[in-house]
Each structure stands twice: as structure tokens, then as C-alpha cells.
């Protein structure tokens, strides 16, 4: 292949161009084949073998202890005025009091529209930002309070996989340098053994270990993402934050990477915080899902509940917006819940329930009182005054007794809020039953 950088740009679709000449006739045994994905190395691969490598959706382990406990986490970014004296004139409430647990070796999915704070949450957990408030308990340490120096030994346990494999790898470093850098930073293995570990990792993610001295531009998008995954795995992390790990990849490659992440999870028992906007991928990868809207978690629960019986109007709208392949058998488009307009500004979010401006069920109480994230099932929490299954939303707010307010949201004099179970990170043994309005248990 010529070294002229312009040569590549002329090959229309760059991704094919990237491994074009080297792949050539696709002689798969050729040593110079960069695309040597271990999955295609052997010829005569039949469907049963390939199907066996595919994974079914991950399963929930309800008894797994939490490895990471997030409690009332907040991140406010200051908004500065223009001019010489840049005063703070407001805050972007990117993440505003969210609580959840990530089970050991499990995965929690974080979904929501762009700007809802899901990526900020990921960056807070990896401490790329220092949170404004709240706590993040990991291994007996509160990550939110640690200084950068104290944080350093813990960083090896919490790693991140980035969205865009084209910009998250330094183009002037070889793959060996990129994947080996964490080893040198943390001084884990002697210098002469770094290469061995790097090659081991490349093999784990399905790349040819001989390619450690190549540069990122010699790899295709899917392979680059594998390099990013290898780098995140270098230090044997306990928690991996995957921020949209497959959304920049081609469809056929997405499945390869998702399967690889599932392999890694099974093999190394890593917990994942999986951030994505593709609801189908999240459903496949995460047995537990949190739905975010404008800096808050509006609904959290296990897969069956969130996708089968969502109770929050936003979750319902989000799910109904996903185009369905099976629709082809029927033809036309499905009836869907239309959400009007855009997400409001997080600088000045709506009072009360933040979703009320776009919600078809919104009433007066929604503007006055913020709905608590109420546990309504053994593994299901929802933040809505009118929580109910699609088509069965109650006519009166379900939260009035708990909050000590009447149906319009005005506080009832003398009433004592009975709500005892607001925003704890995990799940309680008992919950508030929506039909009986009483505390129920398993």
C-alpha cells in the first residue's frame, strides 16, 4: 500500500479503504492481513459455529452485591457571563440527584435522549469530572470526595470505553504504546514484560498480537474499538464505563463488539455501566436499565419490567419511538406516542416533574411537587405522580399520601408524609403497591 495519505482519501468509503489494499484477495492465512479477526481466520466456517459464538441476552443475578453505589449524585456546570469579569450566572444541572447501584459482574444500562446527563454520569464515575454533590461508594472509598492524588490508585479499577474509536486513540502512538500506557503509568509490570501483556490483551479482544507495532489508522472502525476495549482492560478493572461503545460502528460490526463485551464480562467478571441511546442494544446487554431525563432517573428496573411494563410516560414514549423490524410483516408504521418539541434547557429546568412540559398526563400537581423515585415493585422504581402501565394511567395522583399533598399538589395541613423510602441507591424488600396504595412485600 502506498504511503501517500491522499491515496486513501480517494477511495470512497474510507472504512473499506483503511484495510483495502492489505486485505486484497482476502487470503485469510496471509500474515499481512490486518483484518485478521480470529472469527474469520479459519476457512469453511459454518453457521452453527458462528451462531454458537453469538450470545443471548445477559441475565440478571438478583443477589449480586453492589460494586458501585451512587447516592444522590449531582453535577452542576457553571454558566459564565460574557465580558472581562466572568461571573457565574447560572448552572447547567447536568446530573441532579441520581442514585443507583451497579451489581458486581453485572451491567446497568443508562438510556435517554442526548443531553439527559447519561454521559456526564459516566464521566463522573470515572472521575473525569469532580461531582458537585452526592457520593459514589466503591470498595469502601467515596470516589466523589477523593483528591486526584488519592484517586490515582483507584483509577485502575474504574475504566472507560469511549464512543468514537476514530478520535479516542492517539494517531501517533502505536497500538502497543496505547494499550501498554496504563501499565507504565501504574507501574504494574516491569518494562520488559509490558509487551507480553499487551499481546495477551490484543488476543483477548480478537486482534492479531503481532500487530502491536501498527498505528490506529491501519485498522478498521471495529478493530479500533477493540483496541479501545483492550486499553480499558489492561489494568483488570472491576467497573467498566462503556459510553456508547458501538454507536459509531457498522451494524454487522456492532454485534461483534457486543458479543466481545459479553465474553469479557463472563470471563473477567467486570461490572458494566453501559451508556447508549440504542434501546435494543441496551436491552440485549443489560438485565437492568435506568431511564434518564434531564438529569434525573425517571424509571429504573429490570429488563422485563422496563421493556414489558414501563410505568413512566417518558419510558413509554421512548419505547414506542423505536422502529420495529417486525413491522414489515404488517406494513405501514405503528401508532406511536408523539413527544412534541425538544428537551427543555437544563439551565432552567421545569418546576416539579421535569417531564411535565412534554407529558400528555401532566396536571397541576406535576408543576408543584416533584415526584419521588418510588419503588413500586421488587425491582422497579418510577418517578411519576400518575405511574401506570400504558393505557392504564390512574386519574388521580398515586403519590399524594406519601407526600402529604392533595390532588392538586397543595400541602394538606396536618398531614404527615409517610414516605420513608425515597431515593436509596438499591432496592428495598418492601415497596409501595400502586393498586392498594399500601406497602407491600415479596
Amino acid at each position, binding site marked *: 500500500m502506498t504511503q501517500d495519505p491522499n491515496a486513501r482519501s480517494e477511495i470512497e*468509503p474510507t472504512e473499506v*479503504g483503511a484495510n483495502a*489494499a492489505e486485505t486484497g484477495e482476502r487470503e485469510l492465512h496471509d500474515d499481512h492481513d490486518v483484518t485478521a479477526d480470529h472469527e*474469520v481466520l479459519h476457512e469453511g466456517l459454518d453457521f452453527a459455529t458462528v451462531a454458537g459464538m453469538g450470545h443471548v441476552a445477559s441475565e440478571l443475578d438478583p443477589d449480586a452485591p453492589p460494586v458501585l453505589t451512587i447516592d444522590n449524585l449531582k453535577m452542576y456546570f457553571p454558566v459564565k457571563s460574557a465580558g472581562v469579569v466572568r461571573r457565574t450566572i447560572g448552572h447547567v444541572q447536568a446530573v441532579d440527584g441520581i442514585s443507583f447501584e451497579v451489581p458486581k459482574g453485572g451491567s446497568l444500562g443508562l438510556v435517554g435522549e442526548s443531553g439527559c446527563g447519561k454521559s456526564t454520569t459516566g464521566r463522573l464515575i470515572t472521575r473525569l469530572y469532580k461531582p458537585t454533590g452526592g457520593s459514589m461508594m466503591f470498595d469502601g472509598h467515596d470516589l466523589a470526595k477523593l483528591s486526584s492524588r488519592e484517586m490515582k490508585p483507584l483509577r485502575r479499577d474504574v475504566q472507560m470505553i469511549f464512543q468514537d474509536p476514530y478520535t479516542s486513540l492517539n494517531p501517533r502512538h502505536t497500538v502497543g504504546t496505547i494499550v501498554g500506557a496504563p501499565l507504565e503509568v501504574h507501574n504494574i509490570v516491569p518494562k520488559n514484560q509490558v509487551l507480553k501483556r499487551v499481546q495477551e490483551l490484543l488476543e483477548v479482544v480478537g486482534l492479531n498480537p503481532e500487530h502491536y507495532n501498527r498505528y490506529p489508522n491501519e485498522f478498521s472502525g471495529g478493530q479500533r474499538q477493540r483496541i479501545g476495549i483492550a486499553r480499558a482492560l489492561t489494568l483488570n478493572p472491576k467497573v467498566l464505563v462503556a459510553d456508547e461503545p458501538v454507536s459509531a460502528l*457498522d451494524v454487522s*460490526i456492532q454485534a461483534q463488539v457486543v458479543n466481545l463485551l459479553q465474553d469479557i464480562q463472563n470471563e473477567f467478571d467486570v461490572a458494566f455501566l453501559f451508556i447508549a441511546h440504542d434501546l435494543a442494544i441496551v436491552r440485549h446487554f443489560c438485565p437492568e436499565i435506568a431511564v434518564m431525563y434531564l438529569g434525573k432517573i425517571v424509571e429504573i428496573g429490570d429488563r422485563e419490567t422496563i*421493556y414489558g411494563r414501563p410505568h413512566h410516560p417518558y419510558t413509554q414514549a421512548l419505547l414506542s419511538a423505536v*422502529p420495529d*423490524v417486525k413491522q414489515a410483516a404488517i406494513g405501514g408504521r405503528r401508532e406511536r406516542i408523539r413527544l412534541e418539541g*425538544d428537551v427543555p434547557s437544563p439551565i432552567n429546568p421545569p418546576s416539579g416533574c421535569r417531564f411535565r412540559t412534554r407529558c400528555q398526563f401532566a396536571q397541576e400537581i406535576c408543576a408543584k411537587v416533584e415526584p419521588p423515585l418510588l419503588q413500586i415493585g421488587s425491582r422497579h422504581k418510577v418517578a411519576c405522580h400518575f405511574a401506570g402501565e400504558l393505557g392504564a394511567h390512574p386519574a388521580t395522583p398515586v403519590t399524594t399520601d406519601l407526600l402529604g399533598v392533595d390532588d392538586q399538589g397543595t400541602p394538606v395541613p396536618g398531614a404527615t408524609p409517610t414516605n420513608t423510602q425515597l431515593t436509596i441507591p438499591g432496592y428495598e424488600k418492601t415497596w409501595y403497591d400502586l393498586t392498594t396504595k399500601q406497602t407491600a412485600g415479596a
Partner: protein
Amino acid sequence: MTSVPMTQSSAAERDASEGPFLRVEDLKVTFPTQDGPVTAVQGLSYSVEKGKTLGIVGESGSGKSVSSMAVMGLHDTKSAKISGSIRVDGTEVVGLGESQMRALRGNSMAMIFQDALAALHPFYKIGAQLSEAYLVHHSSASKRDARRKAIEMLDRVGIPQPDRRVDDFPHQFSGGMRQRAMIAMGLINDPSLLIADEPTTALDVTVQAQILDLLQDLQREFNSAVIIITHDLGVIAEMADDVLVMYAGRCVEYGTVKQILTTPEMPYTWGLLSSIPDVHASTDARLIPIPGNPPSLLRPPTGCSFHPRCVHSDKVPGDLCRTELPELLPASSGTAHLKRCHLADPVRVYETEVLPEIAPDLVEETR
């Protein structure tokens, strides 16, 4: 490929509009590179009628965008070699001079690009960019008319307060609004052919649903022919009438959306279906990727270009897949359903081997 009764709408009155509005025959696009010519598209034929939607699916590099850019005449004629025939409303576009092409482009056909932020000019106001598109094809119109038309179009695509937003710059719009503005720009001259190149890929699902609704409403209103290029089979299922699956520059399967998504007969289409999870599918469904990477178009594989990644080629006798390019032949489910594959009985393979792995719930239903 099916004939539809002509609707009596205002947009379909010319004689030339009988038969498909766009007919592409044996299209071949070749780019010269330092490593030799790259044939990005070859042997591609399809047609789109007014009021119908064609969906084109395929990976990056399969020639989806190259073929539609050829329709729009957006390739540099000095370097790209285009052969075959593209007839837009009876007019042959291949080899048409730049000035004649300009009269067509933006007027009777328009394109919506994927990345609206990159496709809109950051220096000019939204209104100015929309007006320009109008003025180019309406030389007698005044600037005030053009501005009124721009506001009207912004209103039509659902931008709130269009009379104020018309003076905004693209960066002041949100992602969904920018895409709407792009659609408004594409539709300002009532084109009869609209090519949407991944119109919703960068958008959130809720915004995507709004944009798809809008495209469908507008198509119904203007009775235009629409080509929608995407890799999201869900979008295809809900939007398209016909589907064209492309791989390595060739059409590998063509049919109605129902034929392609419920009874596909080409292993690549199976691979696409099995490598996307579905929000409503059973959780026992496996996610089965297509192994390997898309091939190089510089030196494409011999025979069937999908054979290096195909996991079903062992069912074809001999070395046929490796040595001989399969013809695009009618499939078993109907004459309008074409596929390019050597497999003898793809229906049986799909139903007995592939379907149980990717959609166990569907198999139970059919039994």
C-alpha cells in the same frame, strides 16, 4: 417494480411521469485511485415510482451513497467514470452537462444529507440558505417572496416560531431542528424525487420518530418518490415499500419490504437481521454477527463478493461461491423478489437453521 394507479395529485400531471419516475439501469461508478480503479457500484438497476419509497441498506462502503450521488450528479465527472443509464422523469442524467444538471438538481430532485451541521453553511442564516435554494430555480421571484417561502417551509416542517427562527444560524438550532431545516431546504422547490441519505442516524429515537413522521406526511402531500438510505432495518421496515440490499457495490437482494424482512433469501440479509437486537424480540434470541469485515473494492473477492464472510457457503456444491458470481435471479417467494446467491433452497436453510437462533419466538408461532 409493481405498477401503481396514478393518483390525481397536482404533482403528477406531466406525460413523462408515466412509469417509474426514476429508473436506474446497469449503473457502474468507478473512481481512479493511486492503487488502481475502484469500482464502487456495478450492475445496479432499480426504479422508483412517484409516491413510493425505496429503502437502500448496506454497510459503509457498499455503494449506497455513491449510487445515489450519481443520481444527483454530484460526482466529479473529471475523475469518476459513470456508465449505465439513470433516467429521471424520462431525462437521461448520465453524461448530462453541468448547467442542465443544475436545472434538475434541487428542482425536480433533492437530497437530504446525514450530518445536518456539516451540510448547512455555518456562516449564513437558515433563512438565507433556504431562500437561495428557492431563488436559484425561480429567477423571477423577489427576495421577499423567497423569504416568505422559507418561513412557510420552516413552518411546514414543524419549526416553532418560523418567522423568528428564519434569522437564526445553524448552530442555534438543535439537532432535530437542523435536520428539519435540511428537509425544508430539500423540499422548497417541491421535488418529485427526494433522496434521504441516513436522515436520522445522528438523532435520538424520539426525534427520529418525528422526522420519519414528517417525511411520510410530506411524501403523501407532494406525492414524491423517496429513496431512503439507512443501515437501520427498523426504519426500513416502517418507511419503505421496496428494499434494495447492497453489498460490495452490487445489489444482492431486492424485493418488497415484507419479502426482504420476513423471507430473506440471501445470507448477507440474514446476517444483517441476526446482528441487530430487537426491542420486542425474545431474550433467547442470539446476536450473531457477520464475521470479518467488508471487502476491499480495490481487489474484490472472486465469485460472490460475500463468500469470504458467508457461513452458508459450505452448503453450495463445489467451489461455486468462490469462482462464479451469482446472477440476480428471481427468488422463490415471487417474481419481484430478486437475490444474488448460489444456495439451492435458501428458504429451508433460513427457516430451519437461522430463524431458530435469531427469533425463537417466531418459529413457535409458525409451527
